[in-house]
């Protein structure tokens, strides 16, 4: 359906509960754009070339680089709602002995990236971590570059990573398969045409363009710099998973919720947060996917709580393995203690309870504002309320907003012939009162010192 030319059909389809729509609006604001995606890829590919350069400690030893973590499963999010910052995880496959000293590998990678004075990354913020080197770009984007060595005679893409933690002296190798997990996830996560259409219709209603239109416009803008318009051909747009799978979008929301809890809540400070890959692996097994995003977040959160409860019953930490490579244990660093999984379980209970409150209360601006901001931080409530009113205005302008006699405004099938001002003319067959036209709230403001 072309919703840009058939608004009537679109409006009928868009019978989305306002609470569901509000959560969709927050999710859309979290997602990274196609431009950010390309920029991220350009960043990590540039780093790989740099590490592979003549004179580098890893000169000609870089076999491959690819995205891992959330980027590889299309669940990446902005690190700040209002900014274009995001974090990228990338795996750097090196051609060096798999039993190399972890401290040496991490250290040499750090030196390779930093380079000599005057080289590209010399003045960037570069940090050694226990398994990766983090490069922070001037625009705030960070790339976590994890060196691995592919293992021969193992299943496809199985590799060994290098762990070295200076503070504790821990140093070891670990067999992993991040590429295998990403491929497994992307093949197995369910998508839904119903969800995709509703998510895209909501985008159109609020932002004025569909995902494909947005992608074409963005591509056209970047191409126009070098080519005459007549020379450009629209490329088929690949619609990523975070536009068509409610489960992937739910993952993005849960990640945002997690980040907010571990950043803003005092009782979380200094504690390791549950890694995204664990949440993603659990989400894959959380049962059939709902078309409703709020229900989907609740279902994934409940399933994760259930797994933690089962582990707690056995007085053990949660164990989650890579479904693409069983020896790869995702939970090797989190939870380190049962208290960590108890904390996260308690967080998930808050998430479920708050979303259920939202569902029960219905769309009430004060509740939407407080709950969404509490769950997802920053301006999540403002974003949802702004989008709600934008959608109402779009519907009003298209004659697809009706009002019940009690005053509830709701999307409606458009009516025609409202121009003749006869008695009862504004009442549609549905019983909704259809405004004759869109209006503009005018008037002035009451200054603070007015004594009214």
């Amino acid at each position, binding site marked *: 359906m072309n919703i840009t030319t058939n608004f009537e059909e679109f409006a009928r389809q868009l019978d989305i509960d306002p609470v569901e729509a509000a959560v969709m609006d927050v999710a859309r604001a979290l997602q990274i754009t196609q431009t950010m995606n390309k920029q991220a890829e350009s960043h990590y590919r540039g780093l790989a070339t740099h590490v592979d350069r003549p004179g580098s400690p890893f000169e000609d030893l870089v076999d491959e680089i690819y995205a891992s973590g959330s980027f590889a499963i299309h669940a990446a999010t902005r690190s700040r709602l209002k900014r274009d910052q995001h974090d990228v995880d990338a795996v750097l496959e090196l051609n060096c002995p798999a039993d190399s000293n972890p401290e040496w590998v991490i250290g040499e990678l750090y030196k390779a990236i930093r380079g000599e004075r005057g080289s590209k990354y010399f003045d960037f913020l570069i940090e050694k971590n226990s398994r990766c080197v983090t490069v922070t770009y001037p625009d705030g984007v960070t790339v976590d570059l994890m060196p691995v060595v592919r293992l021969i005679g193992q299943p496809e893409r199985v590799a060994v990573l290098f762990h070295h933690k200076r503070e504790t002296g821990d140093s070891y190798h670990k067999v992993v398969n991040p590429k295998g997990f990403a491929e497994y996830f992307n093949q197995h996560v369910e998508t839904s045409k119903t969800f995709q259409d509703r998510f895209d219709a909501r985008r159109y209603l609020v932002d004025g363009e569909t995902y494909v239109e947005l992608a074409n416009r963005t591509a056209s803008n970047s191409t126009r710099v070098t080519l005459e318009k007549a020379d450009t051909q629209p490329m088929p747009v690949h619609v990523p998973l975070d536009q068509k799978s409610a489960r992937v979008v739910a993952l993005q929301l849960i990640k945002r919720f997690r980040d907010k809890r571990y950043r803003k809540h005092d009782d979380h400070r200094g504690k390791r947060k549950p890694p995204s890959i664990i949440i993603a692996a659990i989400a894959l097994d959380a049962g059939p996917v709902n078309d409703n995003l709020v229900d989907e977040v609740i279902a994934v959160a409940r399933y994760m709580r259930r797994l933690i409860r089962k582990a707690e019953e056995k007085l053990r930490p949660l164990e989650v393995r890579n479904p693409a490579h069983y020896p790869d244990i995702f939970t090797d660093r989190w939870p380190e203690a049962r208290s960590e999984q108890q904390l996260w379980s308690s967080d998930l209970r808050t998430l479920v309870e708050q979303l259920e409150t939202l569902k029960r209360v219905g769309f009430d*601006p004060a509740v939407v504002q407080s709950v969404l901001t509490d769950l997802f931080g920053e301006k999540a409530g403002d974003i949802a309320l702004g989008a709600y009113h934008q959608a109402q205005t779009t519907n009003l302008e298209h004659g697809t907003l009706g009002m019940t006699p009690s005053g509830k405004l709701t999307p409606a099938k458009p009516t025609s012939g409202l121009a003749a001002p006869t008695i009862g003319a504004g009442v549609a067959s549905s019983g909704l009162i259809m405004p004759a036209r869109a*209006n503009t709230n*005018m008037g002035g403001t009451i*200054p*603070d010192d007015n004594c009214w």
Partner: protein
Amino acid sequence: MITVGNQVSDMADVFPGWSCERPTSRTAIWIGQLQPHKTIYTVRVEYTEPLLPEGRSALYVQPLVEILNPKLKRRFGNAEGSLPHVYVAHPRTNRSGPFLCLFDDKKSQWTSEDLISNTTIPWTSNWLSCYESWLATGTWFGTGKHIQTESSGRNAISALMEHYNATTSHAALTRYAPPTT
């Protein structure tokens, strides 16, 4: 022009739960309830059919909408004022307001040719919805613009009147030119 009698019939048809009082033959006052979200508001709408040819602006003859209960709250220190998109007073009445500003008269969004039931009332519900979001966030997310201030460069009395009328000049409401100084 739609007569007040026709407005009364139409309102009774569309909003049978609303009360209607007729203090004069040309005036009707409706009181009813609107609930855009959870809060139920008691709304008062007063309309006086203009005499022809009165030559008044739509802002002057407009239905005057007040929220009787719960009383509209103010947000002090807000960039958009403590309560946006209202008139504190209106020259057609001695009531103290505030009255909701629901349309742009320059775009003829409302005229006396319009039914109140499918203009003023749904716009009021939408205004209340925007008001609730504004109370929660401090941002007016609905459509809206403030009538351009007319006090700059004008005499003190006009400026005072404009201030009293919540930045909207008396002249804008009555469309009578102020005396030039």
